[in-house]
Structures are given as structure tokens and as C-alpha cells.
């Protein structure tokens, strides 16, 4: 097996070598510095991989050759050696990637400061960096000699820096390999080390997700804070008028925009509420039917069909709502003597409700199917009817999952934009009347940001504040959901 393995390693090494050769040839042919640089990094990483593959193969066969009882299987020793080889090199590359460009820029700017600048260049200090980088990459437009020189210096710095780093990286790799070589004894707990390395890798992945969230929240909070420098928090949260269009001249009507978000919150709640009133009962009863009454074959057919509902693009729902449902509602209303405007919360909410039915029905169906058969039999065996069994035994046992599905549907309804834009209009009116046009938080975020906008006007910043509110609201929903689920888990597990 050992020789077979070595053969495989040799084959892989051959392939990697071919790839590296290809990259080098490409890089030479292309000639562009930037590309060359990037290719260099790729190549370097390929070299590191190659070395690690060798380290793996050699570690593996050395462990295989051990006669005394060894702690771990050869494959773990091999993996350990490969990791010990690859990671130090990778760390060096990553550090260089993060630090070298700014560092080289600083040096290049220093050089620029020594030479007398043309007054034009001095005036726009912060454009210089971009200009230098562009020139170094060979497509800058300004042929100022001082700049050219700085750019050349920058490019040279990067070249030498890269060579230095490459040597360092390969050195670190080989050092890691040497360490691994010395550690490769029968007593070495390679298996545990690999376990540990995997754990750290997973922690890194989880951290990435958390950090992204934190980053989004921080930027939301920061931009919102800038918004609240213009508009007071109280006015925003409790103001009853929303008209963010700021006039260009001070003497025009609506010279200062009004940023009272209450009509938006009300509109969002109204539409999401209508959607939930459609989706929850229909979804729940559908789920009860498919999980408890329908024949298995019927269920297998209907469930995927229903789930298609959630897969239809929302814009399709949007024009369905705007072109079919809304006129139908208006005409029906007219026939009954009720004034229903042709853009109404009812149309948007109703269609949205149809869209989110599968969120409720599919999840509820899954959790109800998962309720143990023995519980149903226990209830039926006591002489309960099917619906009594469902009401008293199946639904309570499935409640956490059902609540989860409903809240998922709710956050989807709150976040939905397209249907509302198309069917419910843009007018921020404070009303509880579902027959009139309303607007929602998400729609206003879109309208605030489309088109050419100054980035620090209150109008644009208001989008961030709205986003923050939306975020807090969904967070709140999720917390409630978790609470409900936990309460029932504690009680019934």
C-alpha cells in the first residue's frame, strides 16, 4: 500500500508541476506587473501545496514503516506533516498580502515628498496613492515625472518585497516540515492534533459568519448615528409624517424633509399582518392535511408542488398582484360599494401571504410527521378521534417547529419589497385601512437609495436608520421564537 501511495503522490506532484509551469509561462507572456504579481502569489501557493503533498506522502510512508505500536494511523501522521508544512508558509503569504502594499506605498510617498511636486499634485494628496498604483500597473493617465518616479519606486519595492516574502514563506514551510519530521514518532498523537486543527478551522468559519454580522451591524449603527445628527431619534421613531424628498432650493415646498417613520412601520405591519392572516391558517391546515390525513403518495406529490410557491420570483408575484389581483379587488369593491384603491395593502398582503404559505406549511408538516407514531396510537387507543388527537397531542408536540415556521414566514413578510413596490404603492400614509395604498420600510429604503444620491445627505442616511430598525425588529422576532421553542423543549423533552 505504501508504494501505491507514493505513486499517487508522484502523480499529483506531476500535475501540480504542470500547472505551475503553465502559470509561469502565462505570466511571462502577459508581462503586466499586477497580473504577474498575482500569478506569483498563486504560484507560490502552488509550490507550498506541492511541498505539503510531498510532506504528506513521506510522513505517511514513514509512519507506515514504523514497527512499534503507534498512536495514530499513518494517514493522520501524513496529514499532520502536510499541515505543519503548509500553514507556516500560508501565514507568511497572508501577512505579506495584508501589509506589503500599504508599506510600499508609504515608502513611495516618502520618495515623492523628497522631490519637488507640481502644485497640482500637491493639492489632491489623497488621490496620489491611487494614481501611483495605477501608474505602477501600467495604465495611469497622468504622466507627471515625479509621480512616474514614485510609481517606479513602488513597483520595484513590491518586486523585491515579493522575492523576500517568497523566500521567507518557503523557508517557513520547510521549517514546519522539519519540526513535523522530528515529531513523527510512534508516540506522536497525530490523530488528536488533526482533531484539534479541524476544530480550530471550524471555529474560524463560525467566526467569519459572526464577524460579518458584527460588521454589518456596526456599519448600520454608524451610518444611522450620522443620520441622527441631522434628525432627532424621537422625530424619526414617533414622527407621523414621512416625506424624505428634500428640496434643492430653500424656498421650495417641503424644503426640509420630514423623517417620521411611523407610517412606514404601520404600513409594514399592516401588509405583513395581512400576509400572515392568509399564510398561517392556510399553511397550517394544509400541513395538517398532508401530515395527518393524506395518503403518503398524495403527500409526496403535493408537498414539492407547494414548495414551488416559495421559489417563484417575487417580481412575478408583484405583477400578478398589481395586474390581476388589485384590479379584481377594485372591481369587486366597486360592485359592493366599498372603495378599494387600485394600489392597496390588501392586494400586496394577500399575494405575499400566498407566497409565504410554504414556509408555514412545509415546516409544520415536517415537524408533525416527526411526532412519534406511538403518541398518536396512544391517543387513538384511548378512543380519541383523529382531530382530537391532532389538537391535543400532535400540535402541542409539534409546536416549537410550527412557531419557528411562522416566524420565518413573518420575517420574510417584513423583509419583502418587490410585491409591495408593485402592488401597494409608495405613498407613506398613516392608515389602518387595508383598501388604501401604503408603503413599507423596505420599499422606502429602495426608493431612498436608487438614483444618484449624495452619500451623506439625510435622505440617503435615512435608509441606514430604517435598515437598523428592520434589523432590530427581526432580531426581536427571532429572540421571541427562540424563547418559545426553548420553553416547550424544556417542558416536553
Amino acid at each position, binding site marked *: 500500500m505504501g508504494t501505491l501511495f507514493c505513486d499517487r503522490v508522484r502523480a499529483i506532484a506531476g500535475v501540480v508541476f504542470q500547472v505551475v509551469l503553465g502559470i509561469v509561462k502565462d505570466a511571462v507572456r502577459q508581462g503586466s506587473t499586477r497580473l504577474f504579481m498575482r500569478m506569483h502569489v498563486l504560484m507560490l501557493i502552488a509550490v507550498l501545496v506541492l511541498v505539503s503533498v510531498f510532506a504528506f506522502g513521506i510522513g505517511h510512508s514513514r509512519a507506515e514503516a514504523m514497527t512499534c505500536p503507534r498512536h495514530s494511523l499513518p494517514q493522520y501522521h501524513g496529514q499532520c506533516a502536510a499541515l505543519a508544512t503548509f500553514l507556516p508558509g500560508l501565514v507568511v503569504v497572508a501577512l505579506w498580502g495584508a501589509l506589503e502594499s500599504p508599506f510600499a506605498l508609504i515608502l513611495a510617498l516618502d520618495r515623492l515628498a523628497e522631490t519637488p511636486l507640481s502644485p497640482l499634485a500637491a493639492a489632491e494628496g489623497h488621490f496620489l496613492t491611487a494614481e501611483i498604483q495605477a501608474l505602477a500597473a501600467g495604465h495611469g493617465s497622468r504622466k507627471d515625472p515625479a509621480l512616474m518616479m514614485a510609481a517606479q519606486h513602488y513597483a520595484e519595492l513590491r518586486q523585491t518585497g515579493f522575492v523576500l516574502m517568497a523566500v521567507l514563506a518557503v523557508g517557513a514551510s520547510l521549517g514546519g516540515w522539519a519540526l513535523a519530521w522530528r515529531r513523527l514518532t510512534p508516540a506522536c498523537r497525530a490523530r488528536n492534533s488533526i482533531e484539534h486543527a479541524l476544530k480550530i478551522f471550524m471555529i474560524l468559519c463560525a467566526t467569519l459568519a459572526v464577524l460579518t454580522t458584527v460588521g454589518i451591524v456596526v456599519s448600520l449603527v454608524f451610518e444611522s448615528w450620522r443620520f441622527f445628527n441631522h434628525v432627532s431619534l424621537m422625530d424619526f421613531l414617533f414622527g407621523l409624517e414621512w416625506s424624505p424628498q428634500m428640496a434643492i432650493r430653500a424656498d421650495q415646498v417641503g424644503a426640509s424633509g420630514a423623517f417620521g417613520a411611523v407610517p412606514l412601520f404601520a404600513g409594514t405591519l399592516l401588509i405583513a399582518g395581512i400576509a400572515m392572516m392568509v399564510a398561517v391558517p392556510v399553511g397550517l391546515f394544509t400541513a395538517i392535511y398532508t401530515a395527518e390525513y393524506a395518503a403518503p403518495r398524495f403527500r409526496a406529490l403535493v408537498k414539492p408542488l407547494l414548495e414551488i410557491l416559495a421559489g417563484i420570483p417575487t417580481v412575478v408575484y408583484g405583477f400578478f398582484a398589481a395586474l390581476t389581483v388589485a384590479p379584481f379587488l377594485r372591481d369587486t369593491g366597486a360592485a359592493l360599494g366599498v372603495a378599494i384603491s387600485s394600489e392597496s395593502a390588501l392586494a400586496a398582503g394577500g399575494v405575499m401571504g400566498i407566497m409565504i404559505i410554504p414556509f408555514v406549511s412545509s415546516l409544520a408538516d415536517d415537524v408533525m410527521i416527526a411526532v412519534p407514531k406511538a403518541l398518536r396510537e396512544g*391517543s387513538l*387507543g384511548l*378512543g380519541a*378521534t383523529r382531530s382530537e388527537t391532532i389538537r*391535543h397531542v400532535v400540535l402541542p408536540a409539534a409546536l416549537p417547529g410550527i412557531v419557528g415556521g411562522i416566524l420565518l414566514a413573518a420575517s420574510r413578510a417584513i423583509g419583502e419589497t418587490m410585491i409591495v413596490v408593485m402592488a401597494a404603492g409608495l405613498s407613506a400614509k398613516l392608515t389602518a385601512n387595508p383598501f388604501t395604498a401604503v408603503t413599507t420600510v423596505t420599499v422606502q429604503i429602495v426608493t431612498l437609495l436608487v438614483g444618484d444620491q449624495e452619500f451623506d445627505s439625510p435622505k440617503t442616511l435615512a435608509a441606514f436608520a430604517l435598515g437598523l430598525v428592520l434589523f432590530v425588529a427581526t432580531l426581536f422576532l427571532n429572540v421571541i421564537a427562540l424563547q418559545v421553542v426553548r420553553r416547550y423543549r424544556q417542558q416536553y*423533552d
Partner: protein
Amino acid sequence: MTYRASNDPPHGTVGAPRVEAARAKLTACNVDVFYGEKHAIKDVSLDIGRNEVTALIGPSGCGKSTFMRCLNRMNDIIDICRVTGTITLDGEDIYDPKIDVVHLRARVGMVFQKPNPFPKSIFENVAYGPRIHGLASGKAGLEEIVLTSLKRAGLLEEVKDRLHAPGTSLSGGQQQRLCIARAIAVSPQVILMDEPCSALDPIATARIEELIDELQHNFTIVIVTHSMQQAARVSQRTAFFHLGELIECGMTEQIFTNPLHRLTQGYLTGRFG
């Protein structure tokens, strides 16, 4: 020497699968059960006597549970299961389309092989049956039923301070007794018990056996058990199943002292099964 009942002689079964018509609570005639293609019960004819305990014994997988589940039509729930033949309760065909299954199951209660308490409190578990059948008058009446049922199942002492704790928080044996309490709370006429003592310690087992002795004056009981001693202790009649067939049936004393069929002999002396 084989004895055959005069009415409807079941071929293959030795002993006395029939009792006098007046004493029969449940009567099964030529019952076959299929799970899809699998023939799980083969032409079984058996009487369950009124106010007595009938024990079903036999090796694992021989169809004891399956036969028992036919008696209150629990097999209806299993899609692939098909039952033929007739079973009557007090002379009334329980597979008649006109029969109300729900009402039937209220009269023929069941304790399952695996304890299956509802995800509710201990109190609610026992109160469940009386509630849906409207057996209790008022809150006090319901409490009365719950407490006596728990007491008869020998569980009251252990749970009386935590009636509102979840039923699933009990130990396996306690859960089994909870299920027994739940079944007797609706006062069925027939109680089917599928290995009710399989998870119980000797003391709790003795309590359940006492309960069975006590119940048999007013109720008809069918019990599946793998303990020969238990079958001998609690039952008046015993039926021995093997590979879906009813091999032998008769008075418990006779079966245990003088089995007629060599399969019965083999099973009782532990030579197989």
C-alpha cells in the same frame, strides 16, 4: 389427544380456543392479518372470556401484538395492514363498517408495548381520556378519577407532589404505569396490555399483577407477556402463538402442567424461542 370445540373447529389449534358462548366477551373467527405481502397472523380463532385474564405467549415476532391490535382495530392506522375474518365484541362485529371505531376503542382500551406518555403533565396524561369522553363531572370529579387511576396503577405515591411535572420526565417504568393509569381512567370493558411489565422492577410488577387481579372482577383483560411465571400467576387462560399461528390454547394450569402440542412443550421448557 386433541380437543376441538364443537362450533367452528379451527384446524391446527389444539386445546380449547373456545369458551361457552355466554362467557365469551371477544370472539375471533378465522382471522388473518397481512402487512403488505407478509402473512403475520394465520387463520386464528380464539375466544376471550368475560371477566377473566387471557395471556398471549409465544416467541418474539410471532404476532402476539398484531393479534392484540386487531381486537381494538389499532391496525387500521397502519396503511399496509389488512385484516380478514370476523371479530365480535359482545356478539357485535367490530369490523362492521357501521361500527364507530372511536367508540370501540373507548370500550377496548390498550396499553402499548413501549410506554408512550403524551408531552403533557402527569395529571393531563391521565385526565386526557376522561376529558375527551366527558366522563368527569366538574373539576373535582376529574381529579377524583385521575387520583384513583394513578393509585390503582401504583404510581400515586411517587408522583403525588409533582402531578404537574411533564409525564416524559418519569422513568421508563413509571411511564409504563402512567400509561396503565391513563388506560384505566376511561373505564374500558376490555383492557389489552402488551407486555405491561417489561420495564418494571419486581415490586412494581407485583403491583401491576395485583391490579390485574383486582381489575378482572369488572373487566376483561388480555395480556401479552414474555414471563411464563407472570402468565401462570395472573391468567386463567393462555394462548400460545408461533409464527403467526395459534398453536395451543387452554386453561393456564393445564397449559403449564400438561401442554398438548410439542411446540408448546418446547417453548415452555425453554428449548426454543
